[in-house]
């Protein structure tokens, strides 16, 4: 499986609201971060399996978000939040 994104790429988290199970945390929806780790191994997208829609295999990326991007002006300074996200959850983005 060839990953779509590389370390250092800016990505925006899609604003998805699928029904049922999802591991897309609410607080990063729509936010822009930078890919810090590419896990190119095949992964199962849990949303798909939870809906018995077959196993949708794709890479998982660790994306680093600055706290101010996620929480706005009230965020603590010098904090990064690292979240693992499936490729389907991400779109390419201009550098924030």
């Amino acid at each position, binding site marked *: 499986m060839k990953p779509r994104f590389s370390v250092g790429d800016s990505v925006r988290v899609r604003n998805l609201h699928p029904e*049922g*199970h999802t*591991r897309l945390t609410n607080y990063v929806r729509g936010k822009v971060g930078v890919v810090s780790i590419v896990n190119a191994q095949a992964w*199962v997208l*849990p949303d798909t*399996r*939870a809906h018995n829609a077959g196993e949708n295999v794709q890479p998982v990326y660790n994306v680093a978000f600055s706290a101010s991007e996620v929480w706005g002006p009230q965020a603590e300074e010098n904090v990064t939040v690292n979240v693992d996200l499936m490729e389907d959850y991400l779109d390419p983005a201009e550098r924030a």
Partner: protein
Amino acid sequence: MTFQSSITTDKPLCDLRFDEPWAARLFGVTIALSEAGAFTLSDFQAALIAAVTEHEKTAPIDNDETYYTCWLQALSALLGDVGLMGPSALSASERHVATRLLELQHHRHEQRVAGEARRIAPLVVA
């Protein structure tokens, strides 16, 4: 209340135990089911997330009992989803366990009565 008042300190590196025997069994049953291929731990994680999310709509998780109760809700739901144990089979099995406990209780009661009778008997002899 600060967070500190709700946490345990980490003095010795002692291994952790379950507070409640049922939580230990629940944990073991879940791992055993994943080993047996009934579902993957990833499937279970998704079910646990759903149960935790549902619980936290109305109340926080602030102790192990609440947490493992969510775990139990997750496992009950997942067993239904994978077709191993639907709600009616689960209820039937619960009634079976409850009946066994009642019988045990009744048995204990009879033992106690019998025990009391034995204690009284020797006083009759003059």
